[in-house]
Each structure stands twice: as C-alpha cells, then as structure tokens.
C-alpha cells in the first residue's frame, strides 16, 4: 500500500484566536499563588496540631510525674510502713498520724486533723497547707534531728494533710493554727513511736 499524496490543508488556517498565551500564564501564576498559600496554611495547621499533641503529651507526662512524685501517690502506691496510728491532742484539735513512709528524700506522713467543732487555720502562707485540700506541706524548720510543721485549715473542722519532712529527723514538731492564725498548739512527733 502506498501513501496517498499529501493534501494541501493551508486553506484550513483559522483566524488568529484571542490571546490564550497570556491568559494561560496568568492562570498558572494564580494557581501557583493559590497552591503556595494553601500549602503554607496546611503546614501551619499541621504544625499547630503536632505542637498541640506534643506539648499536651508533655504536660500530661509532667502532671503524671508530679503526681507520682507527690507524697499522696507515694503513700498510695507504697502504703505506710508504720504499724501504729497515734492520735495527738493539739489544743482543742486531734491529729492522727495514719501513715508514715520512709522516702529517699525524707519522711512522708499522712495525717487526719479534726477540729472538734472548731475551724482550723486559714492556710495560704509558705510552709503551711490547707488540710482539707490534701496539700503537701514542707517543714518550717529543718534540722538533723527535728523539724517543725504548721498545718492550717481553711475553715472546715476536719481534713487531711500530707507532710513531707526532708531528711530523716527522729522528731518533728507539728504546729496547728486557728482561722485567725493564732497558734492552737504544737506537738512533737517521735518517729520511733509510730514506726514498727
């Protein structure tokens, strides 16, 4: 089979079309701008999402670490190593030492304070704790053999307190205040009395 002779199709030359070259380039530029903006927004949202998850996890881990490291959880996890739960009379109030745990950093004590119809303390100052809020408190004075702790209550007549005593003193003092801040009384807790 041989090719047919070529045809002269020059007569099919169309009129000059409207400028599609310029229109296409403008369209392409707009597309580039659009895609760039969308990409930046998408990356920004993705980064925000990652950051939220990352910092959220860190926050959760941090909270968990704080909780695990706290005296409440330490006592909850390990239980007390005491076998006695002595109750001390401090003015009109009763303070019962429920649990004592020897920690690497010192003593952890879980106590219940009852005002016997009286409000206990106002709380809030450094070295004190609102017992009804189950806050941990640090001693006001520490020493090799003794420490002094002040517990205040925001107005309830009973509550709990978790006390951290740095070091391992043989004795520490517990000071109790009424809502006006006046001292109700002070007791000395001998660790040998409560430990087994």
């Amino acid at each position, binding site marked *: 089979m041989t090719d047919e002779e070529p045809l002269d199709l020059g*007569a099919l030359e169309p009129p000059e*079309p409207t400028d599609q070259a310029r229109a*296409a380039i403008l369209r392409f530029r707009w597309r580039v701008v659009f895609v760039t903006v969308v990409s930046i927004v998408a990356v920004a949202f993705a980064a925000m999402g990652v950051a939220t998850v990352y910092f959220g996890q860190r926050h959760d881990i941090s909270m968990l670490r704080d909780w695990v490291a706290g005296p409440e959880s330490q006592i909850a996890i390990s239980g007390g190593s005491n076998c006695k739960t002595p109750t001390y009379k401090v003015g009109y109030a009763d303070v019962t030492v429920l649990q004592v745990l020897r920690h690497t950093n010192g003593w952890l004590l879980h106590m219940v304070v009852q005002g016997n119809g009286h409000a206990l303390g106002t709380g809030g100052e450094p070295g004190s704790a609102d017992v009804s809020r189950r806050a941990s408190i640090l001693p006001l004075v520490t020493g090799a053999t003794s420490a002094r702790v002040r517990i205040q209550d925001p107005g309830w007549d009973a509550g709990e307190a978790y006390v951290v005593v740095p070091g391992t003193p043989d004795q520490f003092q517990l000071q109790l205040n009424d809502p006006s801040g006046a001292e109700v009384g002070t007791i000395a807790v001998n660790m040998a009395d409560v430990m087994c």
Partner: protein
Amino acid sequence: MRLEDVFRDHQRSVYAYFLRSTGRPDVAEELTQETFFRACAAALRYRGDAPVVAWLFGIARRVLLESSRKGLFDHHAEVPDASAEPDLAQKLDLEHAFAQLAFQDRETLMLVDYLGFTPTEAAELAGIEAGAFRVRLHRARRNLRDRLKETP
C-alpha cells in the same frame, strides 16, 4: 526566549489543531489555553531534547485526548455555513469535507498535512507504531479526497 513568546509563536497552530480536530471554536480556545497552562508547569521539566513544537503538541494531544474521552468529539465537526462567504467556496468546500471526517482522521491530517510533522514524528506523538500511523494517514487522506469528490 520567554515562555509567553514561545506560546505566541505557536498559538495559531495549536488553535488550528484543536479547531480542526474538534470543529468548535469555543472548545478550541479553551483547549489551547489548557495546553499552555500545562506547558507552564511542564516547562520546568523540559530539557530541550525534543523540538519545542513537538513538546508543545505532545501536551496538546494529551489535552485533546482527555477531552475526547469525555465524549465531546464523538460526532462530526460543525460544518461552516458556505452561504455566508460565497467567494470562498473552495476553501469552504475543504472545510466542509474536512468537518465530515471522523475525529481520528481529522487529527491525523492536521498533524501531518497541516502542521507538517513527518509521519514518524506524528506516530510518536500519537503513541503508535510508524507503520500503523501510515495506514491511518493513508485512510484519512483517501477519506478526505472521497468527501471532496462528493461535494457538489
């Protein structure tokens, strides 16, 4: 040379290719713009190992095929109105006969007899063997001649 100038140099050919293949001026303009639009992105990958015209018509043909797959050209092209320009009767006879051809014949003839690609180059653009393309070309030319003979 700026891309826009390259497009302008070939705008008429690309438009003619689409117009004679589809027979619809509005579609032809749209496809011309689409070809240049895609060429903007493809220009980054163009290494100059093929002539610009072949590269551009490679894109144009893909655009045309995508449009044809949508069923836009499963019919004969629009036949121009010969009574509108009686002095151009011969030209209109050709347009009339060309428009009666099938889509594949129109495209084949445009690539070789209008745009000037060799059958081998056109076969490469069409993605088929050169021998098969020559058969297609032979039939398209014969069909057009037959149509021209039938034209009163």
